């Protein structure tokens, strides 16, 4: 009997790892629900700390390139994140930056507006809920009678995954849409032709507005910025034309514009379209042209209405942007 090559195709070895992230990405993998059975039919999960009890030493023991695909979520915040990124890179054929944090730095990346010293001061000394009469802060190495205790080194700066290891693909989103994950996973598992290395997958080149069905015109003039709760959204008109900041124009489509469909402006988690180096700067530049005034004083009054501009425009992308971090 001829062996059925199709049935004998070896199963993919898949790893999912969680670095500086909230855990939502790992949950989004679980969101495949009953399709998890399809996944496990095509792939063996060899490492997935949220679901399987496999230790780092087990990963260290794997041969180089043993894992076919690693979905790495989370940014690089400390030495443990960095070590695991490097270890998994060594063990994996395809490294996917999965989700906004691995892709661009994500929400943890907003810490780059601060630094280690200021973060430690806030968390361990000055925060309203802190009780720390001895002024203790975490140190990477601490001598105790039993020996030396080690904890990961907290870096001064948060980095996206591709700043520490070579990344093959980026699957953006906070978290990525489960449908997109399945499409990508199926493509890899079935040996379909993959896009060129370094590209963003599971997302479109066009931005949110292309799909968004709200009414848009060339009358994007803003006299006053509103936070979503300050104005009654008519549910039909472009958010920007109502004075509500929406990152949609500077954010890749692919999520199905779910936030906008739910009447909430886009926050930008899918990251910038190709050719945009710095989505925050791009969006600020666009917003600058919409402000409906030529009087410098009035312009600054209007701009002052934007609550937390840095956190709004760079919500997911600060560590991957041109400004990247606070310098001192």
């Amino acid at each position, binding site marked *: 009997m001829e062996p059925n090559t199709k049935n004998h195709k070896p199963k993919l070895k898949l790893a999912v790892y969680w670095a500086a992230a909230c855990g939502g990405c790992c949950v989004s993998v679980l969101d495949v629900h009953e399709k998890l059975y399809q996944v496990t039919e095509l792939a063996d999960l060899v490492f997935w700390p949220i679901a399987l009890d496999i230790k780092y030493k087990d990963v260290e023991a794997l041969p180089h390139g043993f894992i076919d695909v690693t979905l790495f979520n989370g940014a690089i915040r400390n030495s443990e994140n960095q070590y695991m990124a490097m270890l998994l890179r060594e063990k994996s054929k395809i490294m996917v930056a999965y989700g906004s944090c691995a892709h661009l730095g994500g929400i943890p990346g907003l810490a780059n507006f601060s630094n280690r010293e200021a973060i430690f001061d806030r968390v361990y000394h000055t925060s309203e809920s802190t009780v720390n009469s001895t002024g203790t802060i975490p140190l990477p190495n601490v001598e105790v009678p039993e020996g030396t205790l080690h904890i990961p080194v907290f870096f001064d700066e948060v980095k996206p995954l591709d700043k520490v290891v070579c990344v093959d693909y980026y699957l953006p989103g906070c978290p990525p849409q489960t449908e997109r994950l399945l499409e990508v996973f199926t493509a890899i598992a079935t040996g379909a032709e993959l896009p060129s290395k370094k590209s963003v997958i599971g997302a479109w080149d066009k931005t949110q507005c292309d799909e968004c069905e709200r009414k848009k015109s060339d009358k994007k003039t803003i006299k006053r910025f509103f936070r979503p709760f300050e104005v009654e959204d008519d549910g039909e008109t472009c958010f920007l034309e109502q004075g509500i900041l929406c990152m949609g124009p500077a954010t890749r489509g692919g999520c199905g514009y779910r936030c906008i469909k739910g009447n909430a402006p886009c926050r930008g988690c899918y990251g910038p379209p190709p050719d*945009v180096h710095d989505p925050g700067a*791009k969006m600020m530049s666009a917003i600058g*042209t919409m402000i409906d005034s030529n009087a410098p004083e009035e312009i600054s009054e209007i701009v002052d209405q934007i609550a937390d501009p840095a956190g709004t425009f760079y919500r997911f992308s600060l560590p991957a942007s041109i400004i990247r971090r606070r310098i001192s």
Partner: protein
Amino acid sequence: MEEPRIGVYVCWCGTNISKTVDVEQVTAAVSKLPHVIIARNYKYMCSDPGQDLILKDIREHQLNRVVVSACSPRIHELTFRKVLVNAGLNPYLFEMANIREQVSWVHDDRDIATGKATSLVKAAIQRVAHHEPLEKRRVDIHPATLIIGGGITGLTAAMEIADSGNQVHLIEKSGRLGGMVSLLHQTHPHLTAGNELIQPLIDKAQPHPKVRVWLNSQIEEVTGYVGNFRARIRSGEEVEELDCGNIIVATGTKPFDPSQIPEYGYGMLPGVITSLEFEEMLRKGKIVTKDGESPCDIAIIHCVGSRNMEYHPYCSRVCCTTALKFANQIRAALPDAGIYQLYADMRSFGKGCEEFYMRTSRRGVIFMMFDQKGKLPVVKPNNTGGRGRLLISTRELLSGEEIEIPADLVILMVASEAREDARETAHLTGISLCGNQFFIEKHPKLDPVATTTDGVFIAGSCQGPKDIADSVSQARAAAARVLASILCGSVEVEVTTAVVNDKVCCGCQTCISVCPYHAIHFDEEKRVSEVNEILCKGCGTCGSACPTGAIHARHFTDDQILSQIEGLLSPITLKAMEMAMED
């Protein structure tokens, strides 16, 4: 993209650059940079041997990118782009670093200047590596010409163009043609009557079948682009739109109001008049004081509002010779009158003018110099009962003596200044203004009547104070430029325009309202923005407004600009900045 092979050329500009910038050090510093195949320095890069050096290197070393680090690109970018074309390269594979106006002319410290020059050259090298070849396009030229201003400049240009059989629309704001020249009794140095110069032109223009004269008319709006302008013109209540291929702006100047200078008492003392008021008096045929009496002493004060930092820093160019002309006219009319020229510097340049000065000085005219930078002469009523209704006190500079000059009539040689509507005219036609509100030419030496807006030319004293001969030369030059473009039938247009990548454009329409040239429209079917590349001037506003990165401003792409910034902020620059901070 092919691997960049860059040639870098650092110019000494004689000693202009090399006295402040160590050109050898700049050359050495950039010669080892990635993609730099050859780096040289030379005394005058813009000279023929300098250009040949580049040409030869392009051929010998198969260069595909060139950086010249010399003067402002406004002066020689085109020169060097032509070298690339002659060598078979696309002219846009070139970048210029300005180390003269931006470095050697503004710094004294050789180390800082050399560091800054190196950084600018590095920035240019990094940028040029990302340059892409761009192809020139042509558009048809509408044969009609719009001329704004019906003075001698506008009329001369109009006749030159109309006589060749092409339609001219001559727009004049006032109710008459002839401008300033028709106000002049005689002109210097030949004492030809102003009317004799201007009237034949007016008589010829008015009935000319190819000239349409619009009196009491003003331009309200100009849209379009070289070869295809559309102007909206208002005459009283009526508004008409007309098409034209080229525009000549010849709006002239206006006289300075001397009542701003308290020392001269203009407007307060009846015997003090302006040079133009004196012209009017001459045209009426009688030199008289306010009371109708013949003046015994006449003083002429020069540089009123000119060459004075409080009013206008520039020389108005025509006043000295006009003042000499006045002296001759006064002497002819009043053989016994005392004539006093109070001057700051006698500037009788121009053909026949120095001779005119010599002749005038032999006709009993007294020349006295005052210090324009010190205390101005003071004109006041003469209460002593002695000679002259007015007395002018001044320190005569050559003798150093404080003197008083009696005068019954004081003529103020008022400056020539930009018209109050110069800014509006500039805005309508897309011209830039200099600090003195005169229009700026494309190149001060090599392209004096063109502007940075293709198809818009300037001529005469709207560009800066000018005498009749210079204005007429410019009028004919502008007419020649217009006729050349009409004859050619089409014209090359700028290629550094914006372009929309419709694979990325999301249809948000942010770009449409920001375009100052109305060059972008929204394609409802494709749901993307589109740029009319002929209307587009490549200003880049849409590119910076576009949140998706779909709009590229050709030759000013994000990649090009960011690499330029990277080059600029590389360690050499930071070192130079630190050194500057320490000082």
